[in-house]
C-alpha cells in the first residue's frame, strides 16, 4: 500500500515535471513541431505505400478505392517478376545486373575522382588551380539537358556506345561532389598533412591514409547522392544504348509502367520492381547516415 502511494506520488511528480517542461516550450515551437510532424507523416506515406503495394495480390492492386495497407500479403508479384520474365528475350535479372554493376562502378569512380580533385584544389597550389576550380563551379550551373547533344557526340566519337562505359563515364564528372568534398577537405587542418609529411608519408599515402579516412562523412554523403542519381537515371539507357541487353533496371521499370499502363498482369510486376528499385536507396542511406552524422574531422584537434 505504501509503495503504491509512493509510486503514484512519484508518477505524479514526474507528470508534473513533464507538464512544467511542456509549458516551458513556447507556442511557436509547439506549432512548428506539430507542422513538422504532419509533414513527416505526409513524406512517409509514399514509402509505406511502396512497401504495401508490392505485396498486394492482384485483386487488391485494383481495389477501388485504393488502400494503403495490404490485406492479404503475398509474394506472387515477385514470383511473377523473377520467373515469368526469365522466359522473355531479356530477363529481368540482366537489367538488375547491369544496374548494380554500373551504379557501383559509378559510385567508386565519382568518389575517387571527386576526392582526389577536392584534395588537389583544397590543399595544393598548382598552375591554373583557381581557374580549374572556377570551371568546376561554372559546371554546376549547366542543366544536363543543355549538354545532351555535345555529350552524345563525345560518347559516339570515342566509341563507347552500347558499352557499360556509356553508363558510367558521363556521370563521373560530378561538380557537385567535387564542391562538397572540397568544402570538407578545406576544414582539415594543414598541420595534419604536415605531420604526416614529417612522419615520412608521400602524397598518395597522405591522401589514402589521412585525408580519405578523415573525410568519411563527406564520402558517405557523396556516395548517397551518387547512388541515388545513378541508380534511378534512364538517360544513358535512352541515349547511348541501343542494345536491349545493355540497358538498366530503371529503364525496364519505365517500359513497364509506360507500356503496360493498361495491362492487368503487368501491374503486379511493376509494383514488385518498384520496391526493388526503392530498397537499395534505403539500405545505402541507412548504412551511410551514421557516417554522415559522425563528425570525425576535428576530434584530434583542439
Amino acid at each position, binding site marked *: 500500500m505504501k509503495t503504491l502511494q509512493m509510486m503514484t506520488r512519484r508518477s505524479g511528480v514526474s507528470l508534473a515535471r513533464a507538464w512544467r517542461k511542456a509549458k516551458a516550450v513556447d507556442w511557436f515551437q509547439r506549432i512548428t513541431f506539430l507542422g513538422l510532424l504532419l509533414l513527416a507523416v505526409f513524406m512517409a506515406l509514399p514509402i509505406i505505400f511502396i512497401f504495401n503495394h508490392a505485396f498486394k495480390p492482384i485483386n487488391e492492386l485494383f481495389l477501388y478505392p485504393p488502400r494503403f495497407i495490404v490485406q492479404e500479403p503475398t509474394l506472387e508479384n515477385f514470383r511473377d517478376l523473377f520467373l515469368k520474365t526469365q522466359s522473355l528475350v531479356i530477363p529481368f535479372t540482366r537489367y538488375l545486373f547491369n544496374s548494380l554493376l554500373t551504379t557501383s562502378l559509378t559510385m567508386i569512380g565519382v568518389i575517387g575522382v571527386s576526392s582526389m580533385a577536392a584534395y588537389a584544389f583544397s590543399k595544393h597550389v598548382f598552375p591554373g588551380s583557381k581557374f580549374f576550380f572556377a570551371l568546376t563551379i561554372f559546371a554546376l550551373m549547366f542543366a544536363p539537358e543543355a549538354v545532351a547533344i555535345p555529350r552524345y557526340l563525345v560518347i559516339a566519337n570515342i566509341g563507347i556506345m552500347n558499352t557499360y562505359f556509356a553508363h558510367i563515364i558521363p556521370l563521373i564528372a560530378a561538380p557537385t561532389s567535387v564542391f562538397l568534398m572540397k568544402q570538407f577537405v578545406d576544414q582539415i*587542418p594543414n*598541420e*595534419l598533412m*604536415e*605531420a*604526416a*609529411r*614529417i*612522419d*615520412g*608519408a608521400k602524397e598518395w*599515402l597522405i591522401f589514402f*591514409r*589521412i585525408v580519405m*579516412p*578523415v573525410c*568519411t562523412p563527406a564520402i558517405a554523403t557523396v556516395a548517397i547522392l551518387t547512388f541515388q542519381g545513378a541508380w534511378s537515371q534512364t538517360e544513358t539507357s535512352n541515349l547511348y544504348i541501343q542494345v536491349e541487353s545493355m540497358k538498366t533496371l530503371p529503364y525496364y521499370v519505365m517500359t513497364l509502367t509506360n507500356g503496360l499502363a493498361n495491362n492487368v498482369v503487368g501491374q503486379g510486376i511493376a509494383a514488385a520492381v518498384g520496391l526493388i528499385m526503392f530498397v537499395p536507396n534505403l539500405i545505402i542511406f541507412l548504412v551511410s547516415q551514421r557516417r554522415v552524422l559522425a563528425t*570525425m*574531422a*576535428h*576530434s*584530434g*584537434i*583542439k
Partner: protein
Amino acid sequence: MGSVSFQHVKKQYATERRYSVDDFHLQVEDGEFLVLVGPSGCGKSTLLRMLAGLEDISEGEIYIGDRMVNYVSSKDRNIAMVFQNYALYPHMSVFENIAFGLRLRKLPKHELQERVTRAAKVLEIEALLDKLPKHMSGGQRQRVALGRAIVREPEVFLMDEPLSNLDAKLRVQMREEITKLHRKLQTTMIYVTHDQIEAMTMGTRIVVMRSGIIQQVGTPKEIYQSPKNMFVAGFIGTPPMNFIHGTIQHTSDGVFFDTRRYRLLIPAKKAKVLIDQRYHDKRIVLGVRAEKIACKDSVDWSLTQSQFDSTVDMLEFMGSDTYLHLNNTDHSLIVRVDPLRLGFQEGDTVTVGFDMNNVHFFDPGTEELLC
C-alpha cells in the same frame, strides 16, 4: 650530430614585400634547448617551418649536423615536430598515431612495438594506447603528440607553441615535463613560443625576435638582466620593465637623470659612459624593473640611492607579490612590494627609490641599450 646552423636565412612570401625572416644567422649546438620567442607575426614559426622543410627557404642555407638541408624533403631531415593543435590523426588510436612514422619506415614489428611502448612509458600514456584522440583531454593529446615525436628518435625536436592550447595549470605542468624530457633525452630542441614565461623557464638559450629580425640571443639570465634594447626589455619579464623619459644633466654635484618631477643621481660608472657618449642635456630613456624600485621601510630600501614621492593609483595583489601602479603625472611606474610587510591603499602617497646600479639607459631614437 644534432646541431643546427642557420646561415643568413631569409624568407619572403610572394604576396609580401618585406621579409618575414630577415638574415637569420645562428648556430645551435647539439643538445641545446633553444627557445624562439617574440610577438605573433615575428617570423619565429616561419623559421621553424623552414627548418622542418614545410616552407621554402628564399635565401641562405640551413644545416642539420654537417648536411645542408635546403633541398632535403621533410621526411629525410631526421626531425620531429610537435604542433600547436597537436595534429593527431583523428581516426587512429594512440598506438597507431605514435607508430605511424615507424610503420612508414618499415620497422620490424617487434621493434616497433617496443619503441612505442617505451615512448608511452616515458610519457606515462601506456593506459591510453587503445584510445582515439577524441576521447582524450588536451593534456593527454599533447602527450601523445610528444610521444609521436620522441618515438622517431630524431636529431632535432621542433615544437611550435605546443602548450598554448592548454589551460594555465596544465601548461605549468607540461612545461616542467618537457624540460625534464629534454634533460633525459639530451636531444636538440627548438621551441617556438610567444609566451616569455615559457621562454625564460625552459630555454637554455633564448632568441628574441621582432619583425623577422633577431633582437638578442642569450641565456634567460642574460636576456633578463642585460636586455640589448627596449623591445627585449619590455617583452621579457612580468611585469614589463618601466620606461621613464628624461634628460641627462651634468652638474657640479654629479650626473643626474632628470624628469620634470624628480632628479636621480646616476652612479659614477654609468655616468661616465653616458657623458663619454655625449648624452649631456640630451633626451634618454631610463629602464627599471619593478623589483629594482623599493618603497620606504622595505627590506631593499638600503640599496636605493635617489628617492621621490608618488601616489598609488592601483594595487594588483598577486599572492606572493603585490604590484603597485604609481602615478607620476607624465608616466606611471609598476613597483613590486612584499604584501605582508607593507599595507598600501589606493590613493596613498609613498616614497620610492631606485636601485640605480641596476637601471638601464636606452637611446630614445635607436632604442638600443647604452649602459
